[in-house]
C-alpha cells in the first residue's frame, strides 16, 4: 500500500507538471492577443505597444514560461492581465461557489441513484424496474442547460420560489441565502448526474445478481439479504466508485454551463471570461487547479477501490488499468476489472467525455 501511494503520488506530480507545460504551449499557439481586451477604439499605435508590453505579450514564449513556472514553484499563480487581481485568491473565491455546488449535487445524485439503480436491477422484470430504467435513459439524453432553463422558468419566474440566479454578496455568511441560490443549480446538475449513475449502479447490480458466488452463497443457505450484504454490495461498489470519481471530476469541470444558466460566479464562469479576454494567467490558473482537482479525485477513487476490493491491492501501479486485467472478461463493468477510472470499458454507457 505504501509503495502504491508513493508511486501514485509521483504520477500525480509528474502529470501535473506535464499538463502545465502542454497547457502553456497550447494557449500560446492559439491565435489572439491579451492586450486587445485592454484597448479601446481610438487607441494609438504607441498605446497598443505599451499595452502589449504591460501584459508581457511582447516577450519570447520561453521567457514567459520561465516567469510563470518560477512563480508557480512559489505557489503563486500570478496576476490577471486584465483585472490586476492575483489569480490564486480569485480562484479561492470562485471555489466557494463551485465546490459546494459540485459536492451537493454529487451527494444528492448518489442518494437518488443508488436505491433507484438497485431497484431497477433487482426488479428489472417488473414494470417499475423497466420504468426506472427508461427514466434514467431519458435523464442522460437531456442537456443540462435545458433543465436549468426550465427550472428557472418554473420555480423562479413563475412561482417566484427561488432566486433565478446569482450568489449572495457575502458568500456563506448567511447559509440559508447561499443554499437558496444553489438550490436550483444543484438540482439541475443532480438530475443529470443521477440518471447516469443510476445506469451504472443498475448494471453493476445486474452483474452481481448473475454472478456465481451469489448463487453459491444462496445455495449454501444464506438469505438473499445476507448474500448480497456479504458479497454483492462490495463487488457492485467497485465499478461504481470509479464511475463516481469520474462523475465528480466532470461535474466540477463542466460546472461552466450550469454556472452560466444561473449566473453563478464560479470557476467555470471565470474560465469563460478569461478565455474571451485571452487572460493567460487566469486561464492557466483555473486549468491548473482543475487538473489538480481531477487528479486528486482520480487518486481518491482508486484508493477507495483498493480498500474495498482486496484483490486490487496485489496488482501493480494504479495508472495502468484494464489492460492488465487480462483476457476473458469481455463485457460490462464487473468486479475487479480495473483499478483506474474505467470510463471506457467495453459496452457501458460512457459518461467520461461530456456531462453537459
Amino acid at each position, binding site marked *: 500500500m505504501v509503495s502504491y501511494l508513493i508511486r501514485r503520488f509521483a504520477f500525480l506530480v509528474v502529470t501535473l507538471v506535464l499538463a502545465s507545460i502542454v497547457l502553456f504551449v497550447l494557449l500560446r499557439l492559439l491565435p489572439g492577443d491579451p492586450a486587445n481586451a485592454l484597448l479601446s477604439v481610438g487607441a494609438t499605435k504607441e498605446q497598443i505597444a505599451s499595452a502589449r508590453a504591460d501584459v508581457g505579450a511582447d516577450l519570447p514564449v520561453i521567457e514567459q514560461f520561465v516567469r510563470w513556472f518560477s512563480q508557480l514553484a512559489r505557489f503563486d499563480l500570478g496576476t490577471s492581465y486584465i483585472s490586476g487581481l492575483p489569480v490564486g485568491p480569485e480562484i479561492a473565491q470562485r471555489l466557494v461557489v463551485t465546490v459546494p455546488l459540485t459536492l451537493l449535487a454529487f451527494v444528492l445524485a448518489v442518494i437518488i441513484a443508488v436505491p433507484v439503480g438497485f431497484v431497477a436491477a433487482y426488479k428489472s422484470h417488473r414494470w417499475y424496474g423497466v420504468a426506472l430504467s427508461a427514466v434514467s435513459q431519458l435523464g442522460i439524453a437531456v442537456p443540462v442547460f435545458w433543465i436549468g432553463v426550465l427550472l428557472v422558468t418554473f420555480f423562479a419566474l413563475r412561482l417566484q420560489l427561488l432566486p433565478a440566479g446569482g450568489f449572495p454578496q457575502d458568500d456563506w455568511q448567511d447559509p440559508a441565502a447561499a443554499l437558496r441560490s444553489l438550490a436550483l443549480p444543484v438540482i439541475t446538475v443532480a438530475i443529470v448526474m443521477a440518471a447516469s449513475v443510476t445506469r451504472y449502479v443498475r448494471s453493476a447490480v445486474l452483474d452481481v445478481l448473475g454472478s456465481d458466488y451469489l448463487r453459491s452463497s444462496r445455495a449454501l443457505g444464506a438469505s438473499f439479504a445476507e448474500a448480497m450484504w456479504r458479497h454483492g454490495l462490495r463487488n457492485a461498489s467497485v465499478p461504481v466508485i470509479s464511475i463516481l470519481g469520474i462523475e465528480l471530476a466532470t461535474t466540477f469541470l463542466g460546472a461552466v454551463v450550469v454556472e452560466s444558466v444561473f449566473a453563478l460566479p464560479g470557476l467555470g464562469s471565470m474560465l*469563460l471570461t478569461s478565455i474571451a479576454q485571452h487572460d493567460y494567467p487566469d*486561464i492557466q490558473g483555473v486549468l491548473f487547479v*482543475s487538473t489538480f482537482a481531477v487528479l486528486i479525485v*482520480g487518486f481518491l477513487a482508486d484508493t477507495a477501490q483498493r480498500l474495498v476490493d482486496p484483490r486490487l491491492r496485489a496488482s501493480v501501479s494504479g495508472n495502468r488499468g484494464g489492460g492488465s486485467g487480462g483476457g476473458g472478461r469481455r463485457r460490462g463493468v464487473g468486479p475487479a476489472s480495473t483499478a483506474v477510472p474505467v470510463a471506457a470499458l*467495453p459496452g457501458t454507457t460512457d459518461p467520461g467525455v*461530456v456531462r453537459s
Partner: protein
Amino acid sequence: MRRRSITLAIGAVLVGIILATAVVSFFWLPYPPSDIGGGRLAPPSAAHLAGTDKLGRDLLTQLMIGARIALQVGAGSVAIGGVLGIALGLATAFAQRWLDDGLSAVLDVLIAFPTLLVAMLVVAASGASLGSAILAIGLAMSAVVARLTRILAKRVLSLDYITAARVSGTRWPGLILQHVLPNIWPTVVVNLALQFGLAVLAEASLSYLGLGSPPPNASWGSILQEAQGTVLVAPIGAVAPGVLLVVLVIGVNLVADGLRDVGDPTRRGRA
C-alpha cells in the same frame, strides 16, 4: 430477444425522424432561413407552424436546419474521433511498454477533461464556427476511443492463437486486419454510437455558451440560447430545440444499446 429488438426499433424510429427532417431540409424549407418577414415572436399559426424568432424568422425552418447541423456534428466528430482514436489505440497497444505507459497516462488525464472544456478553448480562440466545434469535439473524443481500443486490442493480442500467429511470423498489419479489428469492431461501434449522442450534447452546450454558429444556420443549442430570454412570452423557441435534442440523443443511445444486445446475447435487458 423481443425486448432487445424493441429497443433497437424505437431508437431507429427516433433517429429516423431526425434524419428525415435533416434530409428534407436540404430540398425543402418552409421559408428562406434569413427571411425576417414573419413578424417578431409571432405565435404558431398556419403560416408559421412553430411561430417566429425574435427577428421574425420562421422557427420551423431553423429547427429543421438544426437537425441537419446536429447530425453533422455527430457524424463529423465521430469520424474524427473514431479514426484518430482507433489509430492511436492500436498504436499504443502495439507499442513498447514504456511508450504505452506514457501514452496511457496522458490519455487518462485527457479523458478526465470534459470535451466541453477542450472545445471551449479551441472555439473561443479560433472563432465560433461549426467546423472548429466538430474538430474540437472529435479531438477530445479520440482520447476515449483510443483508450477503449487499446484495452480491447491488448485483450485480443494476449489470446493464445494470436501469440501463435505472431510466432509464426504474421506482421502487425496482418494482425490488425485479420484478428484485432474484426474482434474489437462490434464493441467499438457501439461505443462510437454513444459518443455520437455525447458529441451532439457537447455542441449544444457550446452553442448555449454563445460559442456556436449563430442563426440562421443555428444549432439547437443556439436557438435555445436566443429564445430563453423570451421564454415567458414565446416558450416554443426554448422548448422545441430541447425536445428535439432529447429525441435524437435517446434515439442514438437506444440504437447503441440495441446493437450491443444483438451482438452480445449474454447481456439481457441491460438497457
